[in-house]
């Protein structure tokens, strides 16, 4: 009976996939985030724009509950990450910047492991793994070892991995770092279609300007502070600039930053 009541309370129609409100975080003396607020609506593509060291990874660590936020609130579909971590993490998919696949194991073995981490097993798990591989166009490589994949293909498997439990919110931490132009396009197309077709909320962290399209929303993070949050046109207007690139330069005061191909 309790379970049924809880399910009724689940905010299925709430449009906020992610809400971050007044979050600050510091490591010792150094403040990594200062009073950061942002939201990701369901069915929206939000670019978290910032240079290296702006605090993007710290924010991701807090949202994924690697460590707890000491101030402010973070909630995923209305579930507070700190108070109800299970409910929040069940609705969250993450693509980390670093590789998370076992290179000696096959694609299927990797995905089945990650399905198990969400409590899925047996026929259902295998069907989901195949389905996820199909969505990223790698079903024919299901039994290949991860070692044999190209960088772009491995990224697509990482995305397939993050979709197994059908999350409503997807976080991606610099997902195109180290990829060539063709692979980057492929990854972007897949993620954008998730937003359009399935109403997923996406938070895409990057320092590459040319990954932004006109319909996206931008959150500009600089030295731990949110400098701007809103539409792309508003971003350009706010900086009194002609395009996103000059607007970014003006706001962060960094002359040569964030041009295409500026990879780590």
């Amino acid at each position, binding site marked *: 009976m309790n379970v049924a009541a809880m399910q009724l309370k*689940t905010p299925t129609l709430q449009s906020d996939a992610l809400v971050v409100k007044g979050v600050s975080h510091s*490591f*010792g003396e150094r403040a*990594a985030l200062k009073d950061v*607020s*942002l*939201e990701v*609506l*369901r*069915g*929206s593509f939000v670019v978290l724009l910032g240079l290296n060291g702006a*605090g993007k*990874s*710290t924010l991701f*660590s807090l949202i*994924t*509950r*690697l*460590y*707890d936020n000491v101030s402010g609130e973070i909630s995923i*579909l209305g579930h507070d990450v*700190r108070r109800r*971590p*299970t*409910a929040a*993490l*069940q*609705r*969250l998919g*993450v693509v*980390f*910047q*670093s*590789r*998370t696949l*076992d290179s*000696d*194991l096959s694609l299927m*073995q990797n995905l089945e*492991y*990650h*399905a*198990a*981490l*969400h*409590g*899925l*097993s047996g026929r259902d*798990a295998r069907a989901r793994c195949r389905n996820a591989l199909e969505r990223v166009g790698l079903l024919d490589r299901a039994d290949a070892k991860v070692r044999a994949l190209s960088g772009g293909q491995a990224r697509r498997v990482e995305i397939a*991995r993050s979709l197994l*439990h*059908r999350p409503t919110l997807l976080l991606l931490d610099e997902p195109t770092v180290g990829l060539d132009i063709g692979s980057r396009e492929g990854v972007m197309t897949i993620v954008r279609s998730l*937003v*359009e077709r*399935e*109403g997923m909320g996406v938070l895409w962290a990057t320092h590459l300007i040319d990954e932004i399209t006109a*319909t996206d*929303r931008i959150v500009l993070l600089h030295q731990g502070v949110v400098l701007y949050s*809103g*539409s792309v046109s508003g971003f350009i207007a706010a900086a009194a600039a002609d395009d996103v690139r000059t607007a970014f330069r003006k706001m962060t005061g960094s002359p040569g930053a964030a041009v295409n191909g500026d990879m780590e």
Partner: protein
Amino acid sequence: MTSTATANDVLLKAEPPLAAIGFSGYLACFRGIVWREVLRFLHQRERFLSALVRPLVWLFIFAAGFRQVLGVSIIPPYQSYVLYETFVTPGLVGMILLFNAMQSSLSMVYDRETGAMRTLLVSPFPRSFLLLSKIIGGVAVAMLQAYVFLFVAYFWEIEPGAPAIALPFGLAIPHPFAGYITVAPALFVSGVMLGALALFMSSVIKQLENFAGVMNFVIFPMFFASSALYPLWRIKESSPLLYEICRLNPFTYVVELIRFGFYGQIDWFSLAVVIGCSVLFLSAAIYAYNPSKGLIGRRGGPGGGA
């Protein structure tokens, strides 16, 4: 915060159904974590080989030479004079568990650097459950290695001394094989203790390179200052100080627990120490990985920072 209408125009589907998190979910998660450890181990042939060769070198070379030097008197659980090879086998099995635990701690530091640890921790199951599953996965791999070692040792005429186990319907597990079964619980709890210690260490070690330090400051002292190679009474004769150190070393009790296990007996004091240390190390590891209190958040790792 400005909010545009564009996002709301998208048709909002009902939230997709969530995966089960009940008992079957826990079971699936546990099985998945253990299976991954085993699969990874089976794919690393060099690791398997070195894990097997190390104790065999000790057994075939060290023990064969030492046999003439060191007489082992009759101490429990032995009821007659035993060859040095027989005496040292439980210590070498302990060594397998020890090396394996430290190696899995190494792989956790590595996982932490690559992000595999983060995908584990982003699972919706309680973190303590995830970490314990990971430890048990390591124990499964270690026990696999221990039994392969014992299998080879069997042909070197090293047999456990447990009496036959009677089964229903008049069946029985005969003498040398019964010991392989009675030692299994001892291997399991010992593996959990060492795995928990290694897990705690993995949260404290900052970088992969520090593993050489782990070898020098953890594995070797733990192994040599224990009852693995010599009986404690012999150590007491030559150095009372070393004897006291051995008695404070939890690895001594791992070895004794395994030694008695081979003879179908339980050394209750050793069992109590091993279980006590398991609880202690496990609590420390879970504390270290706790998101609000733990050491990770304070330092900014794994892979975290700005």
